[in-house]
């Protein structure tokens, strides 16, 4: 018998990163550390503003908002290989 229940804060165990079909990859050399991608990321998983983004892929859903907003186009969306 399993009762589906959750304690406060336990939603972090839902690794939403499993959902993505494309993953953002940052070219650090091109990055101007403007912080726009970090402000736009709906999940808040792009690291610290004004630094080169460090993406938490466990929760990144692959929505492409960061790549779309990047003014210097240093973020590319790469296909996640999935058998």
């Amino acid at each position: 018998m399993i009762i589906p229940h959750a304690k406060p804060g336990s939603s972090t165990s839902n690794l939403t990163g499993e959902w993505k079909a494309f993953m953002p990859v940052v070219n650090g050399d091109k990055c101007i550390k403007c912080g726009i991608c970090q402000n736009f990321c709906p999940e808040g998983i792009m690291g610290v503003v004004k630094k080169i983004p460090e993406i938490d892929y466990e929760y990144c859903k692959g929505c492409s908002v960061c790549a779309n907003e990047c003014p210097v186009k240093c973020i590319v969306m790469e296909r996640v290989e999935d058998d």
Partner: protein
Amino acid sequence: MIKTKSGAKVLGDMVANCKPQVVACYPITPTTSLTESLNQYYADGKIPEYITVEAEFSALSALIGASAAGARTFTTTGGQGVLYMHEPIFATAGMRLPVVMLIGNRAVSAPLNIWNDEQDTISQRDSGWIQIYCKNNQEAVDAIPQAFYVAEKILLPVMVCVDGFLLTHAVEQVDVVDEKKVQAFLPPYKHPLKLDSENPVSVGVYANPTHYQMFREDLMEDMKVAKDLLVEAAEKWGKVSGRHYGLIEGYKLDDAERVLVGLGSAMDNVYLVVDELREKGEKVGALHIRVYRPFPREEIKQALKGKKVGIIDRAISIGAQAPLYLETLEALNGTSTDVSSFYGSLGGRGIKRIHIRDMFEKLKKGPVKEWITVNPEFTGLKVNVGKGKEVKK
């Protein structure tokens, strides 16, 4: 105590004896007088909380909250009310909340019809609720404490299904076991994970693809456990009341060659015809399926294999075969049993003895699939209204 009351009223007495802590109902034909009865018990202080809600969806939703907070809960509805509850019906089972609900079985719209068939609850058969069907009001009254017993042990909700009007409005003598005995039979409800602000949890919120199916698999497994618990509850209740029940009930089945199988009050009529035909020397019998969910597949197979079987369905699956017929057919697969399907008797067209004699006659020849129809010749009924307009295609 023997009482002579309508089914719905006498059910109210038994529900009060089970001491539910929270009741939420939206009155609907044919169980309106049960909600009246429960309201009276609330006014008299026997039921501590009665929530007057604006619809059936809210009735069950309120009980989901109350049950998760640790209260024993009860509601009643029928027909359209069941359909309006459809979403919280699935949620109640998924959240493992032992709500007990009495259904006055009623046809579903459209066209609008308040009379009896079993389409409303049969359409909820995949929801994860235990379903008990009752032949008469004595069975219905006895099913209520058993329903609480099983629900609260396995943490699954239970529907007690009673044919609308045919039983809810039938006045007959019913023995209602008194409160002391019921309370001795029914241990207090303790949910292992109740909602509590000191130890906060949320119930049934969200499951990823990785987890969701695990919960559904667990429901399937626990439904099998519920089968044993239903037998256990029936045995214990037998000791309390002197009336014994099982998952299925065979009537003159052992040496029967032809058997009619069905749910609910129609089976009492079948029993009468079995007696009548037995006097003429015909080897006929009947099988009442009291518990439809969990489906007693093995028990049905043992009871029916090798016989000529006719399944009475008072609900249909439009575009496919009748539900009970299909499930019984699957249970009997590979046993070389002739299985016929009689479906219909919808929207208040009762099954009369003349139809049952007819069905037993048809079983002699071999498998048939056909509607149960009321022939106007039998009833003197002239149908000249509500025929509908035929549209040329």
